[in-house]
């Protein structure tokens, strides 16, 4: 009976969500000379307040769809708000002719676009990164229970 009880406790413990971080990679094209990026710079790029990289080429920030968990986690990590809570900011930017980052349909779409487009910058799960792109920054998103 005691063994059965211990097995039950072990099994229940094993099924609980693990509070480990979810690694996310901020990527750019493999031929981009930049090798790293600060969080502050990343924030400005995604707010469209830092339009160019160090070489004078325009940044093209990419997002995932609004309901994508990675997009939501990225937004919470970088701006401390959910994407829809930035609507007022983007409405004002739109009034001044500035549009939000381009939205790609999937992480694979982000990888393809970044690989083929100089200045493009996006984010994907770290384990999906391949040789087509370069990692500028790794972020660990807190796991939501």
């Amino acid at each position, binding site marked *: 009976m005691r063994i059965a009880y211990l097995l039950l406790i072990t099994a229940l413990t094993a099924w609980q969500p693990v509070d480990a971080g979810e690694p996310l990679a901020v990527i750019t094209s493999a031929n981009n000379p930049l090798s790293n990026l600060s969080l502050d710079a990343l924030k400005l790029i995604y707010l469209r*307040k830092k*339009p160019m990289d160090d070489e004078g080429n*325009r940044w093209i920030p990419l997002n995932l769809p609004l309901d994508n968990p990675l997009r939501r986690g990225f937004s919470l990590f970088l701006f401390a708000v959910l994407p829809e809570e930035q609507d007022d900011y983007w*409405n004002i930017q739109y009034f001044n002719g500035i*549009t*939000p980052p381009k*939205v790609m349909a999937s992480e694979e779409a982000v990888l393809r676009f970044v*690989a083929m*487009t100089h200045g493009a910058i996006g984010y994907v799960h770290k384990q999906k990164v391949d040789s087509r792109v370069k990692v500028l920054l790794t972020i660990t998103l807190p796991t939501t229970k």
Partner: protein
Amino acid sequence: MRLINTVIFLLAGLFLNPLPAKASNDADNDYQLGSGYSLGETGWRIGGYASTKVELPRQSPWQFEVSDLSLFLTWDNGSRLRFFSELEAGDLLSAGEHQWPSTKNTHFEFERFYIDTLVNNQLSVRLGKFLTPVGQWNLIHAAPLVWTTFRPVATTNLFSTHASGMMLHGSVPIGERQLEYAFYGDDSSDLDPHLSKNPFENAAGARLRYSFDDTLQIGISFANFALKELPTSRHLLTGLDIAWTYKKLELSSEVVYRTSDNTQPANNWQGFIQGVGHISQRWALIGRYEFFEQPNELMGQVGLFGIAYRPLSPVIWKLEYRLGTHNENLAPDGLAASFSILF
């Protein structure tokens, strides 16, 4: 006129340079309300906003207006040049207690028409017609972006809301935050063939705005200008604006002070303070106090109470009542309701 011709010539050149081919098939290009429609991969985007309002002043007849239909045309192909224009059809349709629905007051105007050249991350050069950077309200005055149908007197009365010429603008890091700046020179009388209401004759000015954190921004504005008016007078304007948010409360205030060398009154104060309380995700209550010195009158004061409903971020319904003293000329008592949408 020369400026407009130059800009049109540049635009013709832009049309001949489509975007370089990119892997864009995976992009989510569906139209979304409030962000305009992208014309493929050309870099062109078209959008705008519309608003309609009913005003019931206490001592004059009611009036209905399709008050604004503004079309934005932007071009940005990823190079260092960006183009933006806003063509406004004002008073598109109006009706009133003694007036059948009519389009007789309809007028068209380029509210903005400029090219930005990105020099670097800290500096852009703007050439054309743009909103005068005095205070924050004037820079975001579109009906879907503000909480009230009535515009505060201080955001429009003492200066021209538009300028034509050159502006150097951008932001520089100060500490951990960005200081936004704008320095401009205006020569509307020579450059703008479609003069806006109360236009500058010429002007020079600057604006600085610092974000202390994500909840507090403070801006200061300066302008030295002559308006197209008689008698001709030189004015010096100083402005201060503050925006602060705390949880579900927004507070904002703008004050302008103008001195003039040949206009009465020679010194003129105007300002407002506004509070917005978000009572739910979609509903907000608005309260505002305004004061404004004015020619040949005691200082006007008004209070405004309103409610706003935003079913979607680019859509807003507003209802408000304004009441004051010595306010008949600039901000009369009355009720207003409006509907506005960014598209």
